[in-house]
């Protein structure tokens, strides 16, 4: 019953203002907690560097550097003062390719994750919250998609849809949602039984209110933490697919760089500057997402937080 020191004339605040205040307070708290995680901050820094590089690509490297016809560097030339990371088999600067490739890899990774997250959360919620026929059907569908081997499905889809950027996004999104769905489903099952959901029912809330105001907000933290891991997987997947030659032939991504490097026998010729940079970039981005995801999970999971 002690007065809140910061809420002087709080009675005069409207509900919306209170809600805003509460939200900003919650964000600030979360950010302070996140900042305390050194590994999470490292991940965030790495990711920021890459995102900034991707966004500022036109400023960092001239677009014309991607044009095969305009390339006039040495073939598979090692790093020099002119070409910091050397050149590829067409004479293009590897650094330029890397920076522009970051755009594609990150874009595909994020968009595919968004699709996967939306489908996965929806399916997970439905199969977890609703029992009976609906729940059973959605669960079976989830299991079915889970069981299908990823690579053959990806190859088939790519072949059917054709090669292209959005098609890759679609392929990754469609094949990676079951993992999220299972996670969300088990979380939903557990939250559904909590006393506060029952209290909402006792107050007179219908199903929609229960799901949107109680189940979903308590499931979302898990979704967010899982999302960062999914992005990592999506980027790796895009790299894999591009490496297998299923990527968009008109655009450079880290995966296509690896594919090209492999095709021209960079390993045998010892052109490490062609293989290592894209590989290392993929690893770094995936690592950064994983670190952020771990830190986020600790920040957002009330049970982990309570132990502190």
């Amino acid at each position: 019953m002690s007065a809140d020191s910061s809420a002087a004339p709080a009675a005069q605040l409207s509900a919306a203002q209170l809600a805003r205040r509460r939200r900003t307070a919650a964000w600030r708290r979360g950010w302070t907690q996140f900042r305390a995680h050194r590994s999470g901050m490292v991940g965030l820094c790495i990711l920021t560097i890459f995102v900034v590089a991707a966004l500022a690509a036109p400023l960092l490297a001239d677009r014309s550097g991607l044009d095969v016809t305009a390339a006039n560097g040495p073939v598979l030339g090692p790093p020099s003062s002119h070409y910091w990371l050397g050149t590829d088999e067409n004479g293009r600067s590897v650094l330029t390719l890397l920076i522009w490739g970051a755009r594609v890899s990150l874009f595909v990774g994020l968009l595919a994750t968004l699709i996967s997250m939306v489908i996965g959360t929806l399916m997970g919620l439905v199969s977890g919250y609703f029992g009976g026929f609906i729940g059973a059907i959605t669960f079976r569908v989830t299991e079915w998609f889970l069981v299908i081997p990823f690579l053959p499905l990806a190859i088939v889809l790519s072949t059917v849809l054709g090669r292209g950027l959005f098609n890759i996004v679609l392929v990754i999104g469609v094949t990676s949602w079951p993992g999220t769905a299972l996670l969300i489903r088990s979380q939903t099952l557990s939250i559904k039984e909590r006393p506060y959901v029952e209290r909402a029912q006792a107050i007179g809330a219908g199903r929609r209110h229960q799901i949107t105001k109680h189940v979903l907000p308590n499931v979302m933290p898990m979704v967010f933490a899982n999302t960062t891991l999914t992005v990592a997987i999506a980027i790796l997947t895009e790299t894999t697919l591009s490496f297998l030659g299923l990527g968009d032939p008109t655009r450079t991504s880290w995966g296509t760089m690896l594919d090209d490097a492999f095709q021209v026998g960079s390993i045998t010729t010892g052109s490490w500057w062609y293989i290592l940079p894209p590989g290392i970039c993929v690893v770094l981005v995936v690592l950064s997402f994983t670190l952020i995801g771990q830190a986020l999970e600790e920040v957002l999971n009330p049970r982990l937080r309570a132990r502190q």
Partner: protein
Amino acid sequence: MSAVDDTTTKTELSAEGVRVEFTTRSGRVARALDGADLVIRGGEVVALVGESGSGKTTLARTLVGLTTPAAGEVRWQGETLGRNARSLKALRRRVQLVLQDPLGALNPRHTVYDSVAEGLRIHKLVTKSGPTETEMVAAALSSAGLRPPEGLFLRYPHELSGGQRQRVLIAGALALQPALLIADEPVSSLDASIRGEILALLLKLRAELGLGVLVVTHDLGLAWNIADRIAVMYLGRVVEAGPTEEVLTAPQHPYTQALLSVVPEMDRLEPIVLRGEIPDPTRIPSGCRFHPRCPALASGEADAVADLCRGTSLPILPSDPDGHRSACHLVASRVSTPLDHRGEAQR
């Protein structure tokens, strides 16, 4: 006792012959509630007392429609409660259930303000001309004894003490201005020294707002403290009901007598410690469901009606809002003898 006026006398929630069953994993049918009658009116506090497995929580949940009865009816204001969402929502506007375990019953991500305002938003009780939502939330928190209410608006449940959480739960129920409150074990998870305040709050709500309160508890002392009437349940049925003073000073049913005798520091009664535990609800004993553990039967006191106890099941105890009744063959046999049964107090 509160002033009896037109609105409170009309408020009535009743259960008639309610039966709730569920099928266990082994396929047997368990009767959590096996025919119970209960009536709660505005302006009175009724204690529903029993041990775990007696069906008291199930009955409370059935009264607010959280559990669907397999048989029997729940009546609100004389009309049978429909199973559709609309009638349930209308009922919950007027009858509120306050769950036990205040920490679990509040959404950890919602502030106190949100939790209390939730009911207002669901039932769209904030009108353009009336008080604002903030005012209504503040009023509810004040009624629940949390002053100044504004200081708690932005708090989260884990930042509050147990007593404060329980009051927030009650405030959430009061915001809807219900006619009846059903409190499931309102103080069992709270420290001993703060129980009194919550109980005093319930009494105050009855006196000032004319609320009817049904308190579900296993604590006879609590019933003695605040209840006008008491109903004792055993294995899915009400076995004794009546005014608290009568039932707890002169209990008729052997189960009530045994329960009362083992309350700690009950010096005036010889403790009757029953053997065993409440039977499995899938295997309800034949005849009187209490007969395998009945001390009166075991001691020979009930020899005259022993066959009835073992073979004839008792009818559902009707809900008599003013009288004192028991579902017991022995008690029935005594009442029907020419002796003045009022003079024959049990102890």
